[in-house]
């Protein structure tokens, strides 16, 4: 830890140049709320820390045409306070409400939350339901990848080491119902044992006409769940139907994770949390 160099370039170009030169021995850092923990624990060893937190190209939350753009260095506090997100990606805004603690929210970034590839990342389910894509920069230019493609497994980042996530492009949605919920071992500062996000709209007859849902912290990489979305779209939401959808969700998830000791709780709690989150539709 003591022999790690710290670099803070002024521009994205400088950052990419440094990364190109020192590929393989540089770790990108923004808020440091994961990286510093790993460094101290000795699970991360790197020659350089490249601080991208102050790069202008990585900042800002804005609507650009039909897209919602969220800078990778946007802090969780900025996400929490963003009126744009509240209007266009309310589940993402809500995922920042109980994210760790205020001190951590003030420095932790959405880019870091995604790139750390923890299955428990709080922003992941909300990003998934907005079909978010990450914009990656390298000296060769820009490209976009779906956020589901960033992690190849828990804590395993699939991105090449010479690229920097600069921002996320979300499909904005103005919906009547949206939420993010999680379960931790205490009210704050607890890693999510499970999390989920959804957004929905009902038509004039009370049928669900739009439904997006993603589960976090239970599977190796959080993803949208198309089966549940299809199950509820076009339906009149009553308690029994949602309860049944929750049961299917739990069953599907356990089929993926296997029946470990922790599954006893998870199976029921997934169904329960789904019910609790989606209940306002009833």
């Amino acid at each position, binding site marked *: 830890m003591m022999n790690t160099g710290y670099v803070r370039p002024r521009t994205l170009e400088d950052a990419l140049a440094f990364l190109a030169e020192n590929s393989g021995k540089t770790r990108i850092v923004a808020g440091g709320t994961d990286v510093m923990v790993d460094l101290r624990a000795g699970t991360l060893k790197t020659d350089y820390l490249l601080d991208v937190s102050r790069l202008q190209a990585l900042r800002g939350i804005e609507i650009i045409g039909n897209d919602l753009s969220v800078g990778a260095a946007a802090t969780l506090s900025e996400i929490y306070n963003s009126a744009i997100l509240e209007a266009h990606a309310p589940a993402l805004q809500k995922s920042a409400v109980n994210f760790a*603690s205020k001190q951590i929210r003030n420095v932790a970034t959405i880019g870091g939350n995604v790139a750390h590839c923890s299955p428990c990342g709080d922003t992941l389910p909300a990003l998934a339901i907005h079909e978010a894509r990450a914009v990656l920069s390298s000296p060769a230019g820009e490209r976009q990848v779906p956020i589901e493609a960033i992690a190849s497994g828990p804590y395993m980042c699939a991105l090449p080491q010479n690229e920097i996530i600069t921002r996320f492009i979300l499909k904005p949605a103005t919906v009547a119902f949206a939420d993010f919920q999680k*379960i931790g071992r*205490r009210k704050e500062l607890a890693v999510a044992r499970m999390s989920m996000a959804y957004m929905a709209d009902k038509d004039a007859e009370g049928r669900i006409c739009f439904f997006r849902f993603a589960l976090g912290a239970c599977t190796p990489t959080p993803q949208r769940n198309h089966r549940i979305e299809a199950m509820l779209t076009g339906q009149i939401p009553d308690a029994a139907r949602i309860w049944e959808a929750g049961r299917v969700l739990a069953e599907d998830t356990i089929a993926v994770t296997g029946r470990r000791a922790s599954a006893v709780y998870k199976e029921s709690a997934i169904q329960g*949390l789904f019910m609790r989150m989606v209940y306002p539709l009833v």
Partner: protein
Amino acid sequence: MKPEYNVIGKSLPRTGSVDRLRGAPVFAADIQLENPLILKALRSAHDHAEVVAIDVSKALAIEGVVRIFTAADIPGKNLLGIINKDQPLLATDKVRSRSDAVALVAAETESAAHEALAAISVTYNPLPSVTDPFEALKTDAPKIHPKGNLLFSRKIRQGDAEAAFAGCASVIEKTYRTSMIEHNYLEPDAGAGFVDTDGTLVIYASTQNPHYDHKEVVTLLGLGDNQVRIIQAATGGGFGSKLDLNVQGFIGLALFHLKRPVRHVYTREEAYLATAKRHPLTLTVKTGADADGRLKAIKAHIVCDTGAYGSYGIAVASRSAVHVTGPYEIEHVDIESYCVYTNKPFCGAMRGFGAPQVAFAHESQIDLHARDLGMDPLDIRLKNCLRVGSKTGTGQVLTASVGIGECLEAVKPYYREALESGVSAPTHPFRRRGIGLGAMWYGIGNTGVQNPSTAGIEMDPEGHITLFTGCADIGQGSTTVLAQIAAETLGVQPAEIRMVVGDTKYTTNAGATSASRQTYISGNAVKDACQKLGDVLMTEAINRLHSPKDSLVFQDGHVVIKAGPENRPEDRIDFPCLAKRIHAKGVPLFWQGYFDPETIPLDPETGAGSPYATYAFACHLALLEVDTLTGQVTLEKLVAAHDVGQAIHPENVIGQICGGAAMGIGFALMEEFEPQKTVSMKDYHIPTCADVPTVIPIIVESAEPSGPYGAKGVGEPALIPTAPAIINAIARALGERIYHLPANLERVLAASISSGHFGPQEVTHG
């Protein structure tokens, strides 16, 4: 009528609070010494193994490594323990847990010390290990210590419990389990030391008991009392874990051999790995009540898992046995408590010494009886609670200061209000509200053994007062309380008294800051010292004021004739004047005070005796909401009534109550230390502010005649009733009870499912 005091019962600014705000007090890790060596301990790689050989050659070759110590380097007795000596500072023939230290590195730098730890090669011969105390009691279990795995047992027998059950209308028998708990004090263990010019080994330590540290280090090194000096550094919490020797012995050993300044600071991970934990208890409790709800008999079998070493295990087993009756009068008692070794991290003292664990059981039992008999939980407690004249399970007759009834009455309005607001009526499809009570009693001081305290008071010829106490203030505020007691006794303000605290060179033994004993026991020692000094001052004043002693009082640094109608200058004389005259006559102005509570040891066969001179009492009320879909529990309110005898410093008492309640929430809902799995605060959850609801503290003052100005203690009682109140509230919310702490997400959700609450429910609107 309550007596009027000058400073007792007043929340004056805490002694040293301004310094604290300025950051002046120095914690052990921050002590600046010239070019100190860094100490690091190598811990065992096995639960249980013979240590065949330790090869340090590679480690010694590392640049910056100065020396590596093993057990062979200890000049004195390599065996530690406050009650029974069974724990080597450095492993000799074998290791008994992964907490055991095998070698100690002294190096010029932190990184050299770390490298050296990795380079030490220890050859082990692994032995079969046992981690379950019931397994450990079997005859063919691996033997952890030469005398076997049963360290201690305590029996308490009175009347005929079995026969009494036969006549009971309600008999309940249940088994309760609690988890191993980490203290998680803010400041990880730390110390530093140097060799003074006269050759004294001076050790600064984060500690709850500097005089015990002193005795152990002296014995460990085979030195004379004057050759070691322990100074308590500013200490950031302890909760019992800083009663054992943590870094002090290592620092002493290095100073002894190297004569160079050293420092030893635990990381959080090492504090987790290497220091004491709360004993996990398994108790089977059978209680019987008659048709009126009067408790008649109790039979209890308690097993305390003490891990690899005794530490305070014997005290925990003994106190558990005494306290498992709860604050209730029960005629027929048959209790057995066992303290058992296992190959786990050792368990020691932690806030409550077993009382929090047994309170979970006795408070669950009494609620079960209430339900069984169709009684109200508050009424059944009021019916059974101890009163003046009651006989406890050990046959002790309580003669005064039995405030449990008052505590129950104090929470009653909140309880009734909650009931009337329909707390238990389902108004939400997947949330259930619950209300629960938890009561407790807690014997102040050590169980049935002597535990004296001493204090010194000095007046210099100019009339300045200095109080000397060995009592470690670890943040709880004892220094303030002792200054108040001295000030009240001598008629001055606490700020006028110079405090010399926790330094074995200048202070005498005040015993451990534990067992909620310092206000009561050290407070009395301080009062005794002050009264002796005061008597000398009074005697001198008689000759100057020409008035008998019983007409004189202390007031604002003077002796004055009381009740005089006019305030005449000739009716008063100031301390400087008296001190000068007394000093001139050669009469001592330094006095030593002493107090040892009157206890009668418990009979080894029947447990009969008076284990404590006085008891604190409390009752908490918890109001909460259970999410029946996920098992999440949200506390809405805690009401906490505590009989403290007399609050010397009410704000301090409230601080203890609120802090204790927070700790109790952790014990109830989330804390569980799993050896090897729990490494740091990443894996171990203590409550944050977000988990703690409004706490309404209520101070009940049922004065204790033998206490200093009526005071008892509150440090541990604060924590004890919280978990039972929460568990009882969950039981009331769900109609299903949890018998294994913590009541974590998994257990609460399981209770929700088995009680039929899981899933969308019909709601009664109203």
